[in-house]
């Protein structure tokens, strides 16, 4: 082979590699849309008939608003704010909405698919909030809160803890491979901040503080929706792995540390199974049994690249116990979280971060990206990371919803809640057999 032929072969391989990268993230993103199909069914099923369309509309609007806003400033924040609150113009240039790579560009096969995957992560954060606040939040205020969460807050935290240069990673060795903290803890505690100001659904609590069960109109729809979310998670998890960035062209985790897709698949499936069985053992409630799949995956997500699979099962099983227990404690505090989002995403997310500190401490930090030194995994880094995620989620959620509440635009009035949130929309959910208004 002549040097020219060798060079041509190398260029052909590079072209093939770029195409493979595009194909991989393109389909991961497509599969992630199933998360939103799932959240849509889940929330509508968990709502009473008179609120079901409003719940679904709210969910779809969050999805739709996230896409342009993540294009406008979300991607920019993720790429550029890794130092804290200081903008890095070098990285930021790649995420500016008027950058030459933020659109059709024959010289760039990566930006669009990575932007797309991160946009779908952002949509997931908004959907987590969406479920918690059903049946009483006003639509426009919810959309604004969702945009702040999905296109500002979570990606700021991701820049700190889910980026090879992020200060939580390089200074403390924070390890959160599949976003227990930067997606789930952030969203769960943002939702908690909003719920405190939003207040409970009418009829949720009695005068003595005891809670009533408000059943949604279709548990089968909710359970099927949860199963769709699990399917979509495989796209989510695939998009958390970097293709062809490792030494010798292998897979890496989000920080550039070596891994394989097989590692992720072993532990994702163990997480799903452990969470379902743990929640079933704890509650024998079909709703919680299926929510257990989320409890389990979220509990193992931070260390998904490293667990021994039976350990992942055990951690997920514990998450399956923790989720419904935490939901009960939150309810005792007088907070009405309609779908247990704070417990499932917030509390299990924290558990996932701490489990990494407990069971994976000492694993070396490594990045195949030039110039990034990452300390070994350690408990201090995980605790600091968890505290940062809780605060970064809770504070903006609480403050913004407090402002909206003072302006009188956060919570629907008692009359609208009594007659049904669907009254704000055109159309009825079940026009022939079941009254929706």
């Amino acid at each position: 082979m002549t040097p020219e032929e060798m060079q041509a072969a190398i260029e052909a391989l590079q072209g093939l590699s770029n195409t493979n990268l595009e194909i991989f993230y393109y389909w991961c993103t497509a599969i992630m849309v199933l998360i939103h199909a799932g959240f849509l069914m889940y929330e509508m099923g968990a709502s009473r008939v008179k609120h079901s369309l409003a719940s679904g509309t709210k969910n779809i609007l969050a999805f739709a608003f996230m896409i342009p806003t993540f294009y406008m400033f979300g991607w920019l924040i993720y790429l550029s704010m890794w130092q804290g609150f200081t903008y890095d113009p070098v990285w930021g240039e790649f995420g500016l909405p008027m950058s030459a790579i933020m659109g059709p560009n024959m010289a760039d096969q990566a930006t669009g698919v990575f932007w797309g995957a991160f946009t779908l992560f952002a949509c997931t954060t908004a959907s987590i909030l969406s479920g918690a606040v059903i049946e009483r939040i006003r639509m426009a205020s919810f959309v604004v809160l969702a945009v702040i969460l999905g296109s500002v807050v979570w990606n700021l935290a991701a820049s700190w803890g889910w980026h090879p240069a992020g200060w939580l990673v390089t200074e403390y060795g924070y390890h959160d491979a599949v976003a227990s903290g930067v997606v789930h803890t952030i969203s769960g505690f943002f939702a908690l901040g909003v719920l405190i100001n939003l207040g409970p659904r009418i009829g949720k609590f009695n005068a003595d503080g005891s809670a009533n069960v408000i059943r949604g109109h279709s548990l089968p729809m909710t359970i099927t929706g949860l199963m769709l979310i699990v399917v979509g998670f495989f796209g989510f998890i695939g998009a958390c792995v970097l293709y062809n960035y490792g030494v010798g062209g292998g897979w890496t985790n989000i920080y550039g540390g070596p891994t394989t897709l097989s590692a992720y698949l072993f532990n994702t499936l163990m997480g799903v199974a452990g969470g379902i069985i743990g929640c079933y053992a704890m509650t024998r409630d079909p709703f919680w049994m299926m929510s257990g799949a989320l409890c389990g995956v979220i509990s193992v997500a931070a260390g998904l690249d490293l667990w021994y699979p039976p350990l992942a099962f055990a951690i997920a099983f514990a998450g399956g116990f923790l989720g419904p227990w935490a939901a009960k404690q939150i309810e005792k505090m007088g907070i009405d979280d309609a779908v247990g989002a704070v417990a499932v995403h917030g509390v299990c997310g924290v558990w996932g971060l701490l489990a990494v500190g407990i069971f994976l401490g000492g694993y070396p930090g490594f990045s195949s990206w030039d110039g990034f030194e990452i300390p070994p995994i350690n408990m201090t880094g995980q605790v600091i990371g968890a505290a940062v995620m809780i605060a970064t989620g809770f504070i903006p959620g609480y403050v913004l919803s407090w402002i909206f509440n003072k302006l009188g635009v956060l919570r629907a009035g008692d009359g609208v809640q009594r007659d049904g949130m669907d009254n704000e929309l055109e159309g009825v959910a079940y026009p022939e057999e079941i009254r929706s208004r």
Partner: protein
Amino acid sequence: MFQSSPITSWEGAEAIFTYADSPLGMAVCFWIMTAMLIVPLVVSYKAEEKAEADHQ
């Protein structure tokens, strides 16, 4: 109509991106999109206010 293309032929083109030489066009599109996000929220607020008034 806007004559936005920076190229006149695909032959020899290496990096092709729309509106590459039209920053004004990009800015106009960007702000139109921004307005298209804000207006529906205002419409939604108004619909909510009406529903509140109708369901006291």
